[in-house]
């Protein structure tokens, strides 16, 4: 076991390795945990995952490089992903991306020099009924107009939330959602990774 991972994450890793009939299946969740430990998917992270799953580093690298959500370069504290696929495009997503680029001063694919915000366009977020959609650390905001997108960026800079909650952002900046979201979520994202308790990537209610 990798000694410098947090005890909690080491336990999570053991559980993940056990929940699949073959250890190799744990590569994807372990890459999320490794990214949490290192800030992004570094070479060391891939070596660690290889060690845990009994694969070679090259095999893990082949997996990590296939999926867009494993960032192999440092990303900002807040990853702002603008959906620009067809439904969002039809409802003005390009103007939202432009507003965010303008407000942050960086272009699609870049990170602000202070390491706070990364901006990227993504393919379909599955929020087509609430287009245009943006997510921050994979927590969603639907019906985000360009002006509100600017407000969102200012808010991230000023409030520096330690946990990102979709419900909070939707209330502050969102418009019409794809459907009624139902009850408020008590868990949110603590890093530029999907917030999922078994992977240790969530923070709790504040």
């Amino acid at each position, binding site marked *: 076991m990798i000694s410098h991972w947090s005890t909690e994450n080491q336990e999570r890793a053991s559980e993940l390795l056990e*929940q699949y009939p073959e250890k190799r*299946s744990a590569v994807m969740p372990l890459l999320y945990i490794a990214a949490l430990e290192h800030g992004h998917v570094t070479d060391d992270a891939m070596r660690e995952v290889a060690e845990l799953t009994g694969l070679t580093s090259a095999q893990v690298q082949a997996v990590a490089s296939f999926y867009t959500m494993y960032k192999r370069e440092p990303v900002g504290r807040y990853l702002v992903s603008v959906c620009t696929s067809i439904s969002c495009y039809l*409802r003005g997503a390009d103007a939202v991306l432009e507003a965010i680029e303008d407000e942050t001063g960086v272009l699609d694919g870049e990170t602000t020099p202070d390491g706070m915000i990364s901006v990227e366009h993504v393919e379909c977020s599955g929020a087509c009924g609430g287009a245009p959609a943006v997510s921050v650390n994979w927590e969603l905001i639907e019906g985000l107009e360009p002006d509100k997108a600017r407000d969102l960026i200012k808010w991230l800079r000023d409030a520096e939330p330690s946990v990102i909650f979709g419900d909070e952002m939707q209330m502050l900046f969102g418009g019409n959602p*794809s*459907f009624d979201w139902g009850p408020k979520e008590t868990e949110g994202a603590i890093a530029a990774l999907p917030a999922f308790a078994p*992977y240790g990537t*969530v923070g709790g209610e504040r």
Partner: protein
Amino acid sequence: MTSNILLARMEAHPSDSNTLARYVDTGGYATLRKTLKSMTPDEVTTEVKASNIRGRGGASFPTGVKWGFLPPDTRPRYLVVNGDESEPGTFKDRMLLERDPHQLLEGIILSAYALDVHEAFVYIRGEYPKPARRLQRAIDEAYEAGYLGGNILGSGFDLDVVVHLGAGAYICGEETALLSSLEGRRGEPRLKPPFPAVEGLYSKPTIVNNVETISNVPWIVENGGAKYAAIGPETSSGTRVMSLSGHLKKPGDYEVVAGITWRELIYEVGGGILDDRELKAWVPGGASAPWFVPSEHLDTPVTIDDIAKQGSMIGSGAVIVMDESTNVVGAAHRLVRFFSHESCGQCTPCREGTTWLERILLRILDGYGRPEDLGLLLDVSDNISPGLTWPPAMTTICPLGPSSTAPVVSMMKYFRDEVEAMIPGAPITIEEVSRG
């Protein structure tokens, strides 16, 4: 005009339809209790077959037939639920996962019982942490209450369910790519046959079904397959959750019975076109589907077979509406860019072809289109999917490449004059291009 099988609970109880307490309070898990006591696995399978339900993920393959492909004697078998929903325009599984995860879970347990499966996986796209959290909480509640784990409700039946998050790859919605991904590999599709039912996860017999498909199972088992089959036309039985998006007044997820017309779906269910503009075209079944236009299709019925007969597909049930202000080259480019980005790169026609199509469309959009680009778009499309027929001919392992030609061919078929108008210089014909 809309119906209420899958969405009933979330509509009646918006504040807590995702919880076990509400699920049980509204009759949930009663079907499971009865089934484990009084039905054999084969009897459950018989009801699912009798329902005539066809897969809701995109291919519309009859679920009962798929289940029937399992070789009788090989164990273990796996059930994998496909929640990788990534087809542009589709957001129905997201709602089913977030708002009624126990309905899916009861469907999983019933299906696993029918199929003699003791380990099930739910593959959810990485961009869906909230749906994954909601399902995981439901799973935790279900273990606690004895609906999952060993000796479920004292029946002697065991089942474990694991949620697996993807990491941003549309192609993993294709069932063999999904299995590769779940095995900890690159999400590359595999050649079929062997089909997953024979050789799937870890080379073991595996059934892969969509979230919506499995969410229907509790209703089917409770009310009987025949009753489900009686809803709507024979070959499009049951209800379907359709995701409406684009230039509509009321985009959203709506549960409808097949046979409704496109006019009703767009103008009544979807509330009509934004700002009362004119309808220009719509994508009837997700980004991979050839477009429909009002002059030909508005008063035709929304059924799996009627759509197929007219050269498109219901796919994942995603309807993307474009109004008169839409630049068709812009729309086609956005659709093709998606496929280009999501191509796994295994097959040359797809990897190279989608990239070519994207670049040609982009230069037309940017005002640098060349007269020969019209012919080139069709030529490249023809190389990906020879003959440009429907259903598309395949040069590739999976249908992603051929799907990328749908927007291009649709654009050229219905709006060629608009494309020509965007190209500087006199338009020339394909015949002239091929003469050199």
